[in-house]
C-alpha cells in the first residue's frame, strides 16, 4: 500500500459537466515566460498573451501576477475548492479573493509560478483562459438562477453553453476590448443593464405552447464613463440567443474602436452611433448569421436537471442548542427558495477575501449541507450555498461559525464591495479594499445589518475612477483620489448617491469629496439624517432616490442640501491636530499617490 492509493476520490455526480481546462496551456505558459525573460518576446505581445491566459500585472512590480480563475455561471465544486485552497497556500498569500464577476483571484503570484497554477486548475477542470484581456470574460449567472421564486426559468444552462461556445473561439480572440455577458434570474437579482450583454429569462405563450426566450440588454457598462444598456427587442426566442450573441460580437469586432483604448468598450460604440442605428445593425447582422451559420453552430444547452439529494447527516445535532446570533444570521443571510423546504444561504466575506483553511472547510460544508453538491459565487464578493434543507440551517450555522464564515449581513448594506485598490492594483489611488472591510466591521458592531430600513441599500468602493468596485450603482458609492492641503496629501473619496442596478438602473449622482478617514462617520451621518427625516415605511434607498430626483419634502431636498449637511466632515485638520487623517488605511506613513501602468485596456 502506498499513501497515494488512499487519496480521497469524488463520485462522478459531484463533478461538473464541463471541463474548461486545457492542460497544454500550462506548459505553453511556462515556456512563454521563459522566452520573455530571455528577451525573445517583446513586452507588448507578452502582456497580451499573459492577459489572454488570465494573469494580470501587479502593483509596482513586474515579478508578480494576479491569476483570475473563471467560474462560469458562478459554479464551484468542492474538489475544485480544495485545489484552490492548496494553490493559494503554495503560490499566493494563503488567502484567495471572490470577485464581483464570479471569478476567484489569487494575488501576488510569482510570474514563473503561474503555469503551476494553470496546471493545478486543469487537474480540476478550471481555467483562467480569457479571464482578462480583450476577450469574452467570465459569463455570469445569478446565484439564484434555478431557485429564485420570481424567475421564468433557470438560465444557468444557457450561461454555461454561452461560456463554452465563446471560450477559445477564434471569433473572440482579439476583440477591441473586453466583453461581458451577465445572465440573471429576474429583474431584481442581477446586473443586466450594466454590462455589454445582459439577459433576463422570459417566456411567452405561442398558441398554447410556452416558448422560452430572453430580454436582452446591450451596450451598458461601468467604468470611467458608465452607460445603461438598451433592450434589443421585446422577446428574443432561445433559438436566437446564440445568433444574437454572435451578431453583437461580430459588429463590435468590426466597428469597435481599436485606437482609443480609453473609449473602446462596446458601450462607446453604441453611444457614438446612436441606439437605433446600432439596434438595426444587430438585427441585420443576426439575419446574416442565422442564414449562414445555422447548420454548424448551435448552443449546447444541457437542460438535464441537477441531482438534488439531501446529504445523509453524519451526526444528529437536533438536541444540541443553537448558538447565539442564529436569528440574526437567518434573517440577513438566507433566502427561501421556490423549492419548498429549501434555502439559499449566503456567505459574506470581508471584501471577498477568504483564507485557504476556510476554503477547505467550505468544500466540506458544501458536501455536508448542499443538496446540489456545489456552490455558486455571488455578485458581491460572496458565496451562495443553495439547496440547504430548512432543518439543517441551525447546524450549518454552527459549522460556519466554527470556521469564521458566519458573519451576518450578507444580503444587507453591511456587506460593502471594495475593489483591490492599493493592495495590488497598479492604478489604485487609495486602499478601497481595506476601507470596505472597515465599514463592514463598523456596521456589524453597530448591528446595522439588522435594520430593515437599510437592507436594500448598498455601499461600493473603487480605488480610482475605473469603477471595478462598481461605485456607480451603489446607494452610496465612493471612488478614490488624493486630496491636498498645501504640500500635504491625504486619501480622499468622491462620493455619489442613488446609484442602482435594478429595473430603474441609474448611476449615482456626485455629492461630495470625503476624506478616507471620514467616510465611516459620513455614512453614519447620512443614516442619522435619514432616520430623522424618514417616512414611516421608508427605506434609506427610497429616501436617497427622492433626494437625488428632487422629490424629497424634508429639509434635505436635493443633493446640494445633502452636500451642505456633510460639509463639516470634509474640512482637513492640520497635520499636528490629526496626523492619522494624512495616512490611508493599512499604512502608517504619509499618504502620497503612486500609480503604475494600467492594464485594463490591454
Amino acid at each position, binding site marked *: 500500500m502506498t499513501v497515494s492509493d488512499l*487519496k480521497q476520490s469524488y463520485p462522478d455526480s459531484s463533478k461538473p459537466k464541463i471541463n474548461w481546462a486545457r492542460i497544454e496551456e500550462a506548459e505553453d505558459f511556462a515556456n512563454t515566460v521563459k522566452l520573455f525573460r530571455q528577451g525573445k518576446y517583446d513586452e507588448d505581445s507578452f502582456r497580451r498573451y499573459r492577459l489572454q491566459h488570465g494573469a494580470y500585472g501587479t502593483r509596482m512590480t513586474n515579478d508578480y501576477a494576479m491569476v483570475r480563475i473563471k467560474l462560469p455561471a458562478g459554479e464551484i465544486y468542492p474538489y475544485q475548492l480544495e485545489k484552490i485552497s492548496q494553490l493559494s497556500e*503554495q*503560490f499566493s*498569500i*494563503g488567502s484567495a479573493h471572490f470577485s464581483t464577476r464570479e471569478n476567484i483571484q489569487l494575488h*501576488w503570484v510569482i510570474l514563473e*509560478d503561474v503555469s503551476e497554477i494553470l496546471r493545478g486548475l486543469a487537474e480540476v477542470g478550471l481555467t483562467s483562459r480569457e479571464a482578462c484581456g480583450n476577450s469574452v470574460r467570465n459569463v455570469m449567472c445569478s446565484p439564484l438562477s434555478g431557485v429564485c421564486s420570481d424567475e421564468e426559468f433557470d438560465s444557468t444552462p444557457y450561461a454555461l453553453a454561452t461560456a463554452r461556445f465563446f471560450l477559445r473561439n477564434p471569433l473572440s480572440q482579439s476583440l477591441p476590448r473586453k466583453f461581458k455577458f451577465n445572465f440573471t434570474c429576474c429583474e431584481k437579482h442581477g446586473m443586466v443593464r450594466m454590462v455589454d450583454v445582459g439577459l433576463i429569462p422570459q417566456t411567452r405563450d405561442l398558441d398554447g405552447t410556452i416558448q422560452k426566450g430572453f430580454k436582452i440588454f446591450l451596450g451598458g457598462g461601468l467604468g470611467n464613463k458608465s452607460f445603461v444598456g438598451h433592450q434589443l427587442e421585446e422577446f428574443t426566442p432561445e433559438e436566437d440567443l446564440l445568433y444574437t450573441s454572435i451578431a453583437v460580437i461580430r459588429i463590435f469586432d468590426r466597428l469597435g474602436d481599436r485606437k482609443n483604448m480609453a473609449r473602446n468598450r462596446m458601450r462607446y460604440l453604441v453611444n457614438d452611433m446612436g441606439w437605433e442605428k446600432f439596434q438595426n445593425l444587430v438585427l441585420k447582422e443576426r439575419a446574416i448569421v442565422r442564414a449562414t451559420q445555422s447548420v454548424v453552430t448551435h448552443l449546447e444547452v444541457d437542460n438535464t436537471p441537477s441531482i438534488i439529494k439531501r446529504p445523509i447527516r453524519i451526526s444528529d445535532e437536533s438536541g444540541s442548542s443553537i448558538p447565539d446570533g442564529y436569528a440574526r444570521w437567518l434573517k440577513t443571510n438566507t433566502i427561501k427558495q421556490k423549492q419548498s423546504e429549501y434555502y439559499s444561504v449566503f456567505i459574506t466575506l470581508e471584501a471577498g477575501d477568504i483564507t485557504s483553511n476556510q476554503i477547505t472547510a467550505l468544500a466540506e460544508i458544501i458536501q455536508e449541507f448542499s443538496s446540489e453538491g456545489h456552490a455558486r459565487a455571488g455578485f458581491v464578493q460572496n458565496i451562495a450555498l443553495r439547496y440547504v434543507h430548512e432543518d439543517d440551517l441551525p447546524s450549518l450555522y454552527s459549522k460556519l461559525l466554527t470556521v469564521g464564515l458566519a458573519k451576518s449581513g450578507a444580503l444587507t448594506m453591511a456587506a460593502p464591495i471594495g475593489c483591490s485598490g*492599493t*493592495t495590488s492594483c497598479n492604478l489604485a489611488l487609495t486602499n478601497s*479594499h481595506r476601507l470596505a472591510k472597515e465599514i463592514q466591521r463598523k456596521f456589524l458592531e453597530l448591528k446595522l445589518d439588522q435594520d430593515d430600513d437599510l437592507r436594500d441599500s448598498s455601499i461600493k468602493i473603487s480605488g480610482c475612477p475605473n469603477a471595478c468596485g462598481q461605485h456607480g450603482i451603489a446607494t452610496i458609492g465612493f471612488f478614490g483620489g488624493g486630496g491636498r492641503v498645501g504640500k500635504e496629501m491625504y486619501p480622499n473619496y468622491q462620493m455619489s448617491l442613488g446609484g442602482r442596478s435594478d429595473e430603474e438602473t441609474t448611476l449615482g449622482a456626485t455629492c461630495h469629496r470625503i476624506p478616507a478617514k471620514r467616510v465611516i462617520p459620513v455614512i453614519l451621518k447620512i443614516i442619522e439624517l435619514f432616520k430623522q427625516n424618514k417616512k414611516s415605511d421608508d427605506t434609506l434607498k427610497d429616501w436617497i432616490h427622492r433626494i437625488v430626483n428632487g422629490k424629497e419634502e424634508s429639509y434635505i431636498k436635493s443633493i446640494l442640501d445633502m452636500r451642505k449637511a456633510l460639509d463639516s466632515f470634509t474640512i482637513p485638520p492640520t497635520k499636528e491636530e490629526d496626523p492619522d487623517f494624512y495616512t490611508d488605511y493599512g499604512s502608517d506613513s504619509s499618504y502620497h499617490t503612486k500609480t503604475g501602468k494600467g492594464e485594463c485596456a490591454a
Partner: protein
Amino acid sequence: MSQEKTIKTTTDIDSLRSEIRDKSVRVIDVRREEDYKQSHIPTAVNLPLANLLSDDSPERVLKLVNAMGIDDETPVVVYDDTFGALASRVAWTLEYLGHSDVSLLETTFSKWKSLGLENDDKTPEIQSKEHSIHLKPEILATSDYLETSKDKPDVILIDNRERLNYLEQHIPGAISLPYRTLATQDKILRPKDDMKRLLDNRGISGNSEIITYCGSVGTLSGLAYYALKSVGLPNVKLYVRSFKEWKGLEKPIAKQQDANYWDLSAE
C-alpha cells in the same frame, strides 16, 4: 549503489516498514516528548527538536547521536508531525556532523497513523554507539558567509517563509519559495519530476550554489534544503540561523514597497 544512497532524501512508507522489521534502521521521532510517549512508530527513539536546539554544537550532537545508538554506518530515518520541517532540521544536523545515511520519512506521523499503520508507546532499549565527527561545512551558511557570497552571480538565495512575510521583509536578493510549495497533499515533498519542473521554472537549477533560509531556526528552510537535494542539486547550503539572526544583526533588509498586500489576507 552507495552513490544512490547519498542522494536519497526521503524513505517511503513500505521501505521503512521492512527496514524496521529487519532492524536495520534507526528511526528518530522529533516531536515533543509527551506526544512521543503516547504513540510513535515502533522502535523509534525520541529527539525533540527543542532539545536538539538547546545546544546544537557538534560535541553535544555527537553525544546525542551516540546515545541514540547511531554509528557512521547506521541508516537513519527521521519523522515529525509538522510537514517534515522539524525532521529536516534534525536530519540536516546529523548530516552536518558527517553522517551520510540519513533521510526523511516521506510522510508525517498523523498520516502514518491515519493509514492504520503500526505504532506503539514503548521506548526502546538503546545500546550506545560511537560516531565519528567529520563536519561538513559545505552545507552550512553563516551570516558572514551569506553577506559576502549572496550577490555573486552564481549564488541563489531562497526565502522559504510565507509570501506575505517575504513581501514585508527579506534578505536583499532573495527569491520567495514558500515551504508549502514543496509538498503535496500526502507527502512532505513533491515527486521528483514535479519538483524539478517547479524549480526549473524558477531558474533554480544547474550548478549554482543555493542557500535557503526561513524565519528563525532553519526548519522550513531545512525542508527546502532536502527538496533541492531531492532533485539532485549538488551545492545546497542552509542558513541555519536564518532571518531572525539576520535581523538581529541589523543587516540590510528589502521590502516590497507601495502596496498594502496585508489587507488582502483574510487571516
